[in-house]
């Protein structure tokens, strides 16, 4: 392994650990948030659905970096002294949550109406239809795009470095600005990201092949 990379590897790897923590937190919380909002957007009342549509539309139309900056500067503006991770993390959760919400909403709405009709014909109450007929199929439909979104979210944790939060990309840039070994360090860090992301990417591709739901 190239010498500068080898010497700084421990530092970079601790950055990678931070990236992993961030990713874990953001992906899990945004998925949870998105599921709730997405479901509301599919089965809620007219005002609820309108709000959800607006939320999704707005957040999907602006860059995640801008949302991160908003979070970073909004907290102190409202009098809270949050650290960079909380501010940026919360922002990313809200952002990614919009994408998850859209996926969940459209998955729920794509469950064939015939199935719901059949369940009603059997006399199932609405809540049970949701739980036993709609959700299982919606989840199956949602998994491939959700895997893709999680992949994107993990990569986007690197943008936190632009706002000032320390993680792998921030660490990489620090090292390069100190040592000027751009190729070694950045390629090495790309390899680290690739190791983190490739399993997810491969899984997502495999799922796209497999989870074609037969109607």
């Amino acid at each position, binding site marked *: 392994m190239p010498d500068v990379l080898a010497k700084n590897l421990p530092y970079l790897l601790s950055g990678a650990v931070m990236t992993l923590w961030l990713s874990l937190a953001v992906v899990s919380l945004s998925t949870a948030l998105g599921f709730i909002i997405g479901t509301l957007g599919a089965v809620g009342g007219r005002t609820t659905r309108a709000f959800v549509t607006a939320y999704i539309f707005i957040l999907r139309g*602006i*860059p995640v970096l801008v949302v991160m900056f908003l979070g970073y500067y*909004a907290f102190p503006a409202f009098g809270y002294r949050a650290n960079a991770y909380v501010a940026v993390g919360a922002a990313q959760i809200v952002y990614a949550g919009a994408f998850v919400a859209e996926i969940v909403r459209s998955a729920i709405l794509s469950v064939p109406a015939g199935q719901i009709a059949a369940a009603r014909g059997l006399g199932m109450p609405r809540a049970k239809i949701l739980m036993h007929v709609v959700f299982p199929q919606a989840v199956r439909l949602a998994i491939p795009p959700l895997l893709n979104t999680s*992949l994107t979210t993990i990569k986007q944790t*690197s943008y936190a470095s632009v706002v000032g939060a320390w993680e792998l990309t921030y660490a990489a840039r620090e090292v390069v600005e100190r040592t000027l070994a751009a190729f070694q360090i950045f390629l090495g860090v790309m390899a680290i990201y*690739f190791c983190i992301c490739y399993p997810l990417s491969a899984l997502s591709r495999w799922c796209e092949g497999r989870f074609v739901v037969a109607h």
Partner: protein
Amino acid sequence: MRAATRMDYAAQVTSFLLGQMPKLLAGFAVTLTVAVAAIPLALAFGMLLLAPRLSGRGLIRGAVQAYIEVMRGTPLLLQIYLIYFGLPLIGLFPSEFTCGVVGIALQHGAFLCELYRGAIESVSQRQWEAGRAIGMTRLAVFRYAILPQALMKVLGPLGNQLIVLIKDTSLVSAIGVMELTLTGKMVIERSAASFEIFVAVALFYLIVTAAVGAGFRLAEQRYAGRL
């Protein structure tokens, strides 16, 4: 806040934002320039990758596939850093703008290639048969039967990908290109401004992405009726 203070606050913010408008517009112009430069490059690069991806010999096809996987698995920011910090080491000194545009085009080109491939493969095999059955060569079938249909089918995903590209232009702020996001950050740091600036910044982006989205949806609808 009481009603009066709320109105004062609103008036304050609005007049401040209006005062900053020239700077924001300048940044917005740079954002658009980056996008307008990167989009054709990305579209063309994706096209370039397509032939080897679909039918090249094993080694070339493997190389393209590997490239696409790497683009899928690493953040764009790193790739931009690699170009910006790395090229000077080998004697090339492109501007920040160029580095950003090239970085964006290299990544999005890979994604666009997959998009094109998906669209072509989604055209039914039977269309190939129909064309060959009336005596068209494979090339003719592709050109007159498959490609037009693929183009109609690619509009939706293409629109989405281009919106992502436009949003990704915000990343070039990290290497000092004075586009909209960096402008917002500068305004906050140089004046006593607060996060409202970024609300204005967000609005600018929203206008562009909404317009592009609407445009593509209109185009999609025109052909949706046939396919």
